[in-house]
Each structure stands twice: as C-alpha cells, then as structure tokens.
C-alpha cells in the first residue's frame, strides 16, 4: 500500500499534496481508501470557485459498495477539478495519487497543513489502528 512521504493526510482519508510555491494543494483519496471502497463508479466534485472550510463536504464518491462523502482536508478555494473522472472514475482506483486526483485548491491558511493533517508515518499508524477494529 502506497503512502507518499511528500503528502499530508486527513483522518477521513483524503491526501493533500501541497505546492508551497503556488500555494495550491492537490487533493484526492488515499490508496488505502480506494482499496477499502472497491471499484469506484462515480465521483461528484464541487464547481471551480467554491470556497471550502476544512471539514466541509466537498463532494461524494460512489463505489459498487457504497457512497461516501468527501471532506475538505484544509480550507481554501477550489481552482481546478479533475474532469477526467467524469468519464473514467476508475482512475481513482488505478492511480489515486496521480491521474486519479480530484481537486486543486488554493489553500487559504497553510498552517492548517501541519495543524490538521498527519504525515505519512502518522497516517500509516492511524490506518493500522483503524484496520485493527
């Protein structure tokens, strides 16, 4: 299971890959999350320009098993959404950190990256505890 070192993670299993120079975070769901969900058949994403607070619902993801809500890991404005997921939602399964990204967000308060999110090591521990239940 892949947990890239260069990203941060939310307890709700979204990752943020933050480009500090641009101030833009790329957000998707983790490899662990896509495995748990199973085959993804539909992803509903917000419109460009939507303002989100950390913890707000940003959309939903539907797999053959269930529908889950997606939550904004940090606050900011949606600047781009991955249109490719409309036609190919399975990209979330095949390449969650690459072509299966969901939205790009201009992060309004970069300190949230450290305050609210886990690093790769912490996230790995977190999902092991969660899987133990």
């Amino acid at each position, binding site marked *: 299971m892949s947990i890239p070192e260069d990203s941060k993670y939310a307890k709700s299993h979204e990752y943020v890959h933050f480009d500090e120079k641009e101030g833009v975070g790329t957000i998707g769901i983790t490899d662990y999350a896509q495995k748990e969900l199973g085959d993804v058949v*539909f992803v*509903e994403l917000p419109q460009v320009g939507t303002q989100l607070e950390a913890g707000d619902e940003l959309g*939903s993801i*539907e797999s053959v098993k*269930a*529908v889950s*809500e997606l939550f904004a890991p940090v606050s900011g404005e949606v600047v781009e959404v991955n249109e490719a997921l409309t036609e190919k939602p399975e990209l979330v399964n095949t390449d969650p950190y690459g072509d299966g990204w969901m939205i790009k967000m201009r992060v309004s308060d970069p300190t949230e990256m450290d305050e609210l999110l886990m690093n790769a090591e912490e996230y790995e521990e977190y999902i092991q505890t969660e899987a133990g239940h």
Partner: protein
Amino acid sequence: MSLPDPLTSQHRFIPNASEDVREMLDVVGVASIDRLFDTIPDAVKLDRLLDVPGPWSEIESRRWFRGLAAKNMTAADHTSFLGGGAYMHYQPACIDQLLLRAEFLTAYTPYQPEVSQGTLQSIFEYQTHQCLLTGLDVANASLYDGSTALCEAVLLAERMHKNKTKVIIAKSVHPHYRDTVRTYVQNLGLEIVEIGWAADGRVDLNELRGACEGAFAIAVQSPNFFGAIEDYEAIADATVGLTRIAVVAEATSFGILAPPGPHGFDICVGEGQAWGIPPQFGGPYVGFMVVRDALKRHMPGRLVGETVDVDGRRAYVLTLATREQHIRRGKATSNICTNEALIALAANIYLSLMGKEGLREVAVQSLQKANYLRGKLGEIEGVELPFAAPVYNEFVVRTPFLAREILADLEHEKILGGIPLDEFYDGFNNDFLVAVTELHTQEQLDKFAVAVRAAIARERR
C-alpha cells in the same frame, strides 16, 4: 377525545408504557400527544369516536353499503365529460385479469433479483415506455401520482442548483399539483413564483422572462389545466439556465403531441392514470418521472436496470440504489423508497398492448372528437371559448350564466358536463372544463351540444 389516553392508560395495540410516552414527549419538547397533530386544521379533526353502527351480519353490512353506493352518480350511468387530471379512456379487459395474478398482486413489491425477475422485467419495460414517450433518457420505477412526481421534480432541480431557492410554476399547472408542491416545500426555504397565462391560455412568456432572475427551475404543464398545448421551445428559449420541468397530466397526449425531451426540457413528470387505469376517486394512480442522463444520480425513487447474470443471460436488478435511503441515509435523494408497482404494471400492459399505433389512435380520436365538440359548442349563441390556443382533448367553455347552474341542469339529462373552474381560479364563475376521449360517440357529443343550448335557453327565461 374519548380515545384512551396513552399517558394514563395502556393501549391494547400500542406497547409503549406511559412513562415511555412521557419521556418521548419530553425529548421532542411538547406537552401532549395532541400537539403533534397541530398542523392538521381543527376543521378536519374528529373530536369524538367514529359513529359506527352495528354490529351487523355480513348480509346486513352488504345491504347498507349497497344503499350507500347507490347514492353515487357514476360515469357508468351518465355521459361524463369530467377530466381535469383523471380521464376515462378504454381499459382493455386483460389489464385487470393480469393484475390479479398472485405473483404481481402481493401486499409488497419484491425487489430481490433472485426471486423477482418478472416484477423487475415489468418495471424495466415500464421505464422503457416512459423514455420512448418523453424523449428523455432515464425513467424511474414510478412515484405515487402526478402531484407528488412534480414535487420530487422540483426537489431534484433544486439539488442541481444548490445556491438558488426560487422555482417558477405556471398557474396553469393543475391546481392540486401546485397545492401539493406548496405542502412539500413549505418548510424547506424555497420560494414559489407563479406566473399567469396570455390571452390564448398558454404561459405568458413576457411574465415568464421577467421572473427568471434568480430562479433554479420552471414547471409548466402541457396540455395545461385549461387544455391548451404549450409551446415547449418558446418556453425553453425564455428560460435559459433553468432546469425545465414538463408536467403531463393527460398521458395519452404523448400519442400525438411532441415530447418534451427533444424540445428543451430536462425533466418530464406526470400522471399515468390515462394509461389503462380507471378514473377512480382517490386512486391509486401512478406518477412517472423521466430525466436527462446528467440528472440520473439526483433522481428519487427506485430504478431497474438490465444486466447479465453469471452465465451471461439477460437479467434485471435495482440499480443506482446508492441514491436511496437504505444506503444513503440522511443524504438520500428522497425518502421515496418504493414505487407504485401494480399500477405501473397496468400502465406497462396498456402501453404494450396499444403499441405505437394504438396509442396514436387513442390520441387522434380523443383530439378529433374534442375539437368536433368544441366547434359544435362554439356555434351556440351565448357560448364563448375563452382560450384560442390549440387543445388536445380538453377545453374551457364559458356561458353568460354560472357554470354550476348549467352543469346542474345537464345532470338532469344524465350528463356530467365538466368541472366548474370557480373552485380553482378567481373570476371563472361562468367557466367549466370539458374533457373528451375516444370513448365518446358522435351521438353523445351532439346530444351534449343540444343539452348545453337548452340549458342556456332555460337560464335566459
């Protein structure tokens, strides 16, 4: 109230102890159970036990009910021109016979694919008919009736435009449907803006254009409540950016009128009663909903899809169930988690049996006979046809006298002449709505015209 008070006495069939009832009332913060029914107007609340006579034997009960039934005026012993959302078309005898099959006539609709391929196939066929008739992409397994289908359409449209709260509904949409929408949305923070009609009876396009600012959807009915056929494309042109809902209350009109899908409409909802279901008071009827592909994940209700089983054979299953309450809980698109399966089956049998040609024949005959009668009535001195727009099988008639008086007069001739419009619209005291179907004979139409002429003459004296 002389019913047992659950706070002080134990009810035979409700196993809540008095303390439990007290605790539940405390949690929701009301003092008494009666307060839970505050939204029901006092005028319709019964403040005593039902006055039920008896006990009687079966024979006595039947005699009593037969006497009661004999007080009804029925379309069986009158010539009826009543319409307004319920239409008397021919119902082929095999519909009722097939509905009686125990596999279909169960207390609840089984949806499990392992045991219900027949039911699911019938629903799939019903949905296929809806798509073909409306020119839209995805139909659900049916809703309760035309009015609740419109409500669900408004809520669906609202989900597509999350920041807007205004919906436009033409006043010429069935008044009962508009009432039902008001009831549905009254606590949801939505604003309903009603727009009127132009001189010809169709939607007033200028008023419509002026109302569009800030609205998320427009709902029009065609043929509308006055029978006038709306111009879908003109309405679409006037409502750029809005989700457009077409309401069809006379479902046989699809046999001849242009479908809403290819003419700029996103959702078509309506009443399927005209498809082989008798116009019985209180239903059950069947509501239909068909939407563009892009809206399917926001659609309420059940949906049957076609797939293949492990051996590659054609099979039917409920699909897109992730929208629904049992999976999606509070985020479901609707709390509708059933359909009107038996009545949808009747509609499916009717449409399958009539086919393209049969449905067209029903529509052509209804249209021609209605327009024949409209012409005959128009020749009578004193009769006015207030709306000039083209009609399908229903139209408004105005005389110089109260519609209720004219209609009462026609009843003496064993004619149910129509629906007085004063109940629904101010200033329409002299107007009534006349519906004609393929069942009317030329003799009946001619006799109706003669009777209307005579009624006006009698009023003049």
